């Protein structure tokens, strides 16, 4: 469903992605981890073309993301994305945040969109906040709304870019619970995350990145059981220490 073929990207002379190749099948949950600056976020942003890349190919649903003839807005509308800092639209109510793209991009009627939005808000436990503005919600609540906003487009896959990194510790679980629910429902997911508990619980595979390279791409049990590379071992020993 999502395929990276030898993707390389440079910021000026600095290479952020080095020849990255991997594949995400339909229904798979992939967790991407690695030290900061290793290119994890850049990698998943290549999937919906938020980050252009200079070499290689990213294929989503048989469409090449970088190709000129690809209708990028249309492709993006089929891939949900959740950001580290939520990025809800602060001048719109929660419901309008969910409705906007449904109406403007998918062409749904306002009634249809609102019904869908309310159903999804119920799913993430936010139905009682539908009329509020993002600024009135806690971080965890905002992130749950952001997940619902992505789901409202009936995406074929969801991308998560460190969805819990900006949250207070006590709010992390409410967001992870929603993500676990999604994974169990068979959503194709690519998550940049340091939540190793989450990875163990639902991920099919773990991708470990360092300095722009995919160092390890292994089934979850193998990654945690016997990571092959030394860098992955060091990384794991550092974050699983406590």
């Amino acid at each position: 469903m999502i395929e990276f073929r030898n993707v390389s990207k440079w910021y000026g002379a600095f290479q952020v992605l080095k020849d990255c190749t991997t594949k995400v099948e339909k229904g798979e949950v992939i967790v991407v981890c690695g030290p900061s600056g290793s290119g994890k976020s850049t990698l998943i942003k290549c999937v919906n073309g938020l980050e252009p890349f200079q070499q290689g190919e990213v294929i989503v649903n048989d469409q090449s993301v970088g190709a000129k003839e690809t209708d990028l807005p249309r492709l993006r509308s089929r891939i949900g994305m959740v950001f580290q800092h939520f990025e809800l639209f602060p001048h719109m109510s929660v419901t309008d945040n969910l409705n906007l793209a449904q109406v403007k991009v998918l062409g749904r009627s306002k009634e249809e969109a609102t019904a869908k939005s309310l159903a999804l808000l119920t799913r993430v436990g936010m139905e009682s906040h539908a009329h509020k503005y993002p600024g009135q919600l806690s971080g965890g609540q905002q992130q749950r709304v952001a997940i619902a906003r992505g789901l409202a487009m009936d995406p074929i896959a969801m991308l998560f870019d460190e969805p819990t990194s900006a949250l207070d510790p006590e709010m992390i679980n409410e967001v992870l619970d929603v993500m676990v629910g999604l994974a169990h429902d068979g959503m194709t997911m690519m998550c940049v995350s340091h939540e190793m508990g989450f990875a163990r619980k639902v991920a099919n595979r773990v991708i470990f990145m360092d300095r722009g390279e995919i160092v390890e791409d292994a089934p979850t049990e193998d990654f945690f059981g016997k990571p092959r590379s030394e860098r992955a071992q060091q990384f794991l020993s550092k974050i699983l220490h406590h």
Partner: protein
Amino acid sequence: MFTGFDFDVIERSLPYLFREGMTFTLTLTALAMSGGIVFGTLLAMMRLSSYRLLNVPAAAYVNLMRSVPLVLVIFWFYFLVPYIGAWAIGAKEPIQVGAFWSSVITFTLFEAAYYAEIMRAGIQSVPRGQVSAGQALGLNYWQHMGYIVLPQAFRNMLPVLLTQTIILFQDTSLVYVLSITDFLGAAAKIAQRDGRLVEMYMFVAVVYFIISFSLSLLVKQLQQRLAIIR
């Protein structure tokens, strides 16, 4: 202190001052503000574009307009626009624009340069992530600009936009060079006819002050009502 002054002249000329003068001043302000904000926003978007074909002309326009005195622009347009218009439509005679429309066009184009700089700052004040979020949802350029970036930019910049409008309101008095009767022009005429310069100009100052000051109070109120909850 005021012996020898005649303040009745004000009362006598009120209908003329407001019906003729102030109506023109307010009409010009409103038209130039709306036109200037729309055109200025487009200029700002052009200036922030990555296409050189868009950002270079926009930057040149803004810098040129901002480095020329307004009076000069008013003159230039008044004398040039008829010829440019005639050239554009291929007419032999200069087209008649009239002092009123000439001043509307001039002020719109001139103020647009200032509004453009304000809106540019406004657009840049919207976090980059908001744009990413809009794009990730599949919104195209005009949609994410129209529904996400500009509404926030506008709210963030509202006080500055209105301050600029107050300056515009005061600047409209420069139309006297085209012998248009705006509020100040009307007062000047009466002042000279009746020899009551001090009285009339004092009155004009008070009126300008009241209007400008109430506008700035309005800015404060609007700002609170439209503020984004963060």
